[in-house]
C-alpha cells in the first residue's frame, strides 16, 4: 500500500493513504460508559457518529455499544491496560484490519458520491459514520469541510483506491 499522494492535473481532490496509528474496537454497555470514560481518560460519545478527542486519543461512536478508538502507537499498551477486568467489555485491536485513505479538496463530496449513496453534505464537520462505499463497508470521518478519511478493510483497499483514482481523474476532466 503506497503512502504517496495521488493527484491528477487539475483534479479538485487528492487521494492519499494515511499511515497506521493504533485502532481498537471498544464494546461495552451504554450503562457502563462513564466507567469506561474514567478508565480511558477519554469521553465516549453516546450519540452515533459523534467524535470525542482527548490528548492524542479519539473515540468515534459507531453503535449504541461500540466505539472506534484511535491513538498513537505508543499509547496502545496503556489503552489495553486501562479497562478493569471488573468492567464487562470487549477491547480488540483492529489496526491491521484497516487501511485509511485521506481525501481532500473541493471535489471531495463529488468523489465520494461515486461510491456512497447517503447524502454526505449532511455529515457535519468533526463527525463520522460507518457506511458502504461501492459495496465495501467503510468508516468515514469528516475532518474538515473538504477533508474526509475513509477506512476500509485491508483486502478491499486496492479496489476502493482504484475507484477513487478513476473518480479523481473524471473530476479532473470536468465532464
Amino acid at each position: 500500500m503506497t503512502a504517496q499522494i495521488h493527484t491528477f492535473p487539475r483534479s479538485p481532490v487528492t487521494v492519499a493513504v494515511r499511515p497506521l496509528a493504533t485502532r481498537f474496537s471498544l464494546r461495552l454497555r451504554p450503562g457502563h460508559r462513564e466507567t469506561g470514560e474514567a478508565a480511558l481518560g477519554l469521553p465516549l460519545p453516546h450519540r452515533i457518529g459523534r467524535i470525542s478527542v482527548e490528548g492524542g486519543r479519539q473515540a468515534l461512536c459507531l453503535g449504541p455499544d461500540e466505539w472506534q478508538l484511535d491513538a498513537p502507537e505508543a499509547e496502545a499498551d496503556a489503552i489495553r491496560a486501562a479497562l478493569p477486568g471488573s468492567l464487562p467489555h470487549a477491547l480488540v485491536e483492529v489496526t491491521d484490519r484497516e487501511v485509511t485513505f485521506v481525501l481532500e479538496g473541493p471535489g471531495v463530496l463529488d468523489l465520494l458520491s461515486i461510491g456512497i449513496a447517503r447524502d454526505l453534505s449532511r455529515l457535519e464537520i468533526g463527525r463520522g459514520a460507518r457506511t458502504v462505499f461501492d459495496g465495501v463497508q467503510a468508516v468515514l470521518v469528516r475532518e474538515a469541510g473538504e477533508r474526509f478519511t475513509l477506512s476500509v478493510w485491508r483486502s478491499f483497499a486496492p479496489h476502493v483506491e482504484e475507484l477513487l483514482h478513476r473518480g479523481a481523474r473524471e473530476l479532473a476532466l470536468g465532464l
Partner: protein
Amino acid sequence: MLLIHCPYCDETLPEPEFAYAGEAHIARPADPMALTDEEWRDFLFIRSNPRGTHYERWRHVHGCGRFFNAIRDTVSDKFAMTYRAGEPRPNLDALKEAAE
C-alpha cells in the same frame, strides 16, 4: 433503493446500508425440545407474508450494526415506522389515530 430510518442512528439512510432479516416478532422458543414437530415447523418456516402491513426485521449492517423492526406496506413498500429490537409490536391503528 428504499430509504430506511434506523431507530438507533435516528437517521433515514439508503437501503445499501441495510440488510433485510425476515418477519419480525417470531421469537425463538425458550425450550425448543418441548415443542411438537408442528410447533417447531411453525417457528422455522411458517410466515404471514401479508399483502399489506408487514412487521419485519432489518439490520443496519453497514452502519450501527443493530437489528431493528419495521412496519412496511408490502404493496406500496412504504414504511409506517421502525422501532428497536425488543420493543413490543406497535398497534398500527392506534398509531394512525394518533397521527390524525
